[in-house]
């Protein structure tokens, strides 16, 4: 059997139905095998888009997303997408063509050392050296990408290993001496965590992407209710608890809500669930939750004490850890006499730190647009964001009601991610409406995938919060650089309505919130790729905000 044939067979064995990619010379043998196969090949218009599509597919479905690119520039174009998926622990497997082994290392046409280039942007990578290695490489890639702390894996396939034939063995299981996945937490660690929580007077739960990845939302909600503990989330944890749950405090961090940031700052016990505690979440580390005993639950041991020092840790799957903690707490007597006071504080913080409404401004305001979008969409709609102001407005003002319905590039902050990720999400769930909350700058980075939406019948809605400026950088220049706007003004080009029409999509520019809601409703019910161009004020800032270098208590709510 040829390597290319074995490759397609191995993908089928993994249950892959869809792959996202761009073809090219070094993957011709694979494409020839895909011809006539049951696998759906979604053609992106740029490899970065293909990787983001696979990522969006993975985050929505919980299954491995697959992308394919040719060697050289095809492979390097994937890198941003691979790095984005990996830092956000999204299970993505990327396949790249490579020049034949006979010329490997000679700087042949379209040769690039993609193994070297992606070494620190993947969880693992493999270069195949013989056709017979392909089934094992594919199985290994899926295994490593989808287990433990999930991530991106790249498999590099020299062209002759695709063409040549060898006897093939398709392994059921693969194992690595150096890769053991421990899901089950240590009972002693669970005892300590439960004991600390049982004594907490001002408990706060910080839920991260690990809660979503381990499908632990029901357990998270049960624990929060049992402890009467407010839940803050990192960006990756958004949706882990419904946005309208009374114990939901909101996002914590640089653009966290007042109540989340202040509750975390005042907590006496902080339970961190599957979160990396990055600088954007903690703000100034020295001021982070100074009084709290921190319990950190994570499947990746290297995250413990990396940024925030912990009192106790639980290594393992977040869902299993939560189950273990719940079991223990249910046998303890919990004193909740002070919890009412604690929750009142949440209300007070919320009132104090709600940014004032701007009056007398003719533009639509982004927070109001986010709330109108929420009203116009069903509860289970899928939403992606781009990066920058649009992302933070979405995180703050668009409620997510379920895990895997709000997707964002958290760690890498990749502009241009949301739109192709939305296409991948649509491929995973064609039954649900998918909306990309975009800025004009971000959308410009991957807008060419409109062709993919239209041609592949993957209709998504793009809401462009259009301020004619790279808004987040402009906000920093406005607040911290004395309004010296440098390299942020985008001008009037393009006209997004005409752009959409040029691709055969629908473009609309609503003038009022009512019109906006109507347009969203129509785009969803027509199931048509629609770009909704919403003109907002270029001077509008995202608040609340913790200025860079400050602690979580230093919250700005207006300029």
């Amino acid at each position: 059997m040829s390597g290319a044939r074995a490759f397609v067979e191995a993908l089928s064995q993994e249950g892959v139905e869809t792959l996202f990619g761009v073809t090219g010379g070094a993957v011709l043998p694979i494409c020839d095998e895909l011809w006539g196969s049951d696998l759906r090949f979604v053609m992106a218009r740029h490899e970065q888009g293909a990787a983001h599509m696979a990522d969006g597919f993975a985050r929505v479905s919980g299954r491995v997303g697959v992308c394919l690119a040719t060697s050289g520039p095809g492979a390097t174009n994937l890198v941003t997408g691979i790095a984005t998926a990996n830092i956000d622990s999204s299970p993505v497997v990327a396949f790249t063509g490579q020049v034949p082994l006979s010329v490997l290392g000679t700087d042949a046409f379209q040769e690039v050392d993609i193994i070297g280039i992606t070494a620190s942007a993947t969880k693992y990578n493999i270069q195949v050296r013989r056709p017979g290695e392909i089934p094992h490489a594919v199985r290994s890639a899926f295994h490593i990408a989808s287990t433990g702390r999930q991530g991106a894996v790249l498999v590099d396939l020299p062209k002759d290993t695709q063409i040549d034939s060898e006897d093939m063995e398709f392994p059921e299981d693969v194992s690595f001496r150096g890769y053991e996945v421990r899901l089950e937490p240590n009972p002693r660690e669970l005892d300590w965590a439960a004991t600390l929580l049982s004594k907490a007077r001002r408990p706060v739960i910080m839920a991260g992407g690990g809660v979503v990845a381990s499908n632990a939302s029901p357990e998270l909600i049960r624990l929060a209710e049992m402890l009467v503990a407010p839940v803050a989330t990192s960006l990756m944890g958004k949706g882990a608890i419904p946005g309208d749950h009374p114990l939901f405090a909101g996002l914590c961090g640089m653009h966290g809500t007042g109540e989340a940031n202040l509750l975390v700052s005042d907590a006496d016990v902080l339970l961190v669930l599957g979160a990396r505690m990055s600088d954007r979440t903690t703000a100034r580390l020295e001021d982070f939750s100074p009084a709290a005993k921190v319990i950190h639950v994570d499947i990746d041991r290297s995250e413990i004490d990396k940024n925030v020092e912990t009192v106790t840790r639980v290594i393992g799957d977040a869902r299993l850890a939560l189950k273990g903690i719940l079991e223990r707490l249910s046998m303890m007597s919990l004193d909740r006499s002070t919890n009412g006071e604690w929750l009142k504080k949440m209300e007070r913080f919320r009132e104090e730190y709600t940014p004032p409404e701007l009056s007398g401004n003719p533009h639509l305001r982004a927070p109001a647009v986010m709330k109108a979008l929420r009203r116009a969409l069903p509860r289970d709609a899928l939403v992606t964001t781009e990066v920058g102001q649009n992302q933070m407005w979405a995180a703050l003002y668009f409620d997510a009601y379920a895990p895997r319905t709000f997707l964002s590039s958290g760690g890498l902050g990749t502009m241009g991610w949301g739109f192709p990720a939305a296409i991948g999400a649509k491929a995973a769930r064609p039954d649900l409406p998918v909306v990309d909350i975009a800025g004009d700058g971000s959308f410009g980075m991957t807008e060419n995938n409109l062709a993919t939406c239209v041609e592949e019948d993957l209709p998504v809605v793009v809401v462009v919060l259009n301020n004619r400026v790279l808004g987040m950088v402009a906000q920093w220049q406005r607040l911290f650089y004395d309004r010296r706007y440098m390299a942020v003004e985008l001008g009037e080009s393009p006209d997004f309505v005409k752009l959409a029409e040029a691709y055969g999509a629908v473009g609309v520019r609503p003038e009022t919130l009512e019109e906006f809601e109507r347009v969203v409703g129509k785009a969803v019910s027509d199931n048509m790729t629609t770009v909704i161009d919403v003109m907002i004020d270029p001077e509008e800032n995202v608040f609340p905000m913790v200025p860079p270098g400050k602690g979580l208590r230093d919250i700005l709510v207006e300029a």
Partner: protein
Amino acid sequence: MAKMSTIAILVENRPGVLFNVANMFRRRSYNIESISVGPVENTELARMTVSVEADSRELNQIVEQLDKMVDVIKVKRLDPMRSIMREMLLVKLDTGDPMAREETLRHVNARHGLILHIDPECIVAEVTGEPEEIDEFIELTRPIGIEELSRTGITALEKGRLKL
């Protein structure tokens, strides 16, 4: 406080693994002071000995980051009191002058080193010892005139029945 530590790492003996290990140090801004690698009794595996300057928190991160790499099988920081740490030095000394030659032989013999090559111009010697002893030897022979030298970096084993 940052101090020199030695880490032993058991890895898959496969192309690219050394690169990945070294790459982790580079990417997270840890500076490798020395590294030595070779296959072990089971030739599918290789053992690396890395010395690195780091404080205890950094050292913890280094160990955890190494440990989670797929091709890394075991990682251990070695306790200097319970480990044997050795390094080998090859040094070429300018011994055109008979006095220099005599002095060279004296130092090498005092360290139980070996004379590997002699010609009218220079001597190539081998000395093994703890890294500090090698430093000291280099300082002692510097006045003679070092043409060039090469150190292997530390290799280490734990004492008694302790194992990686």
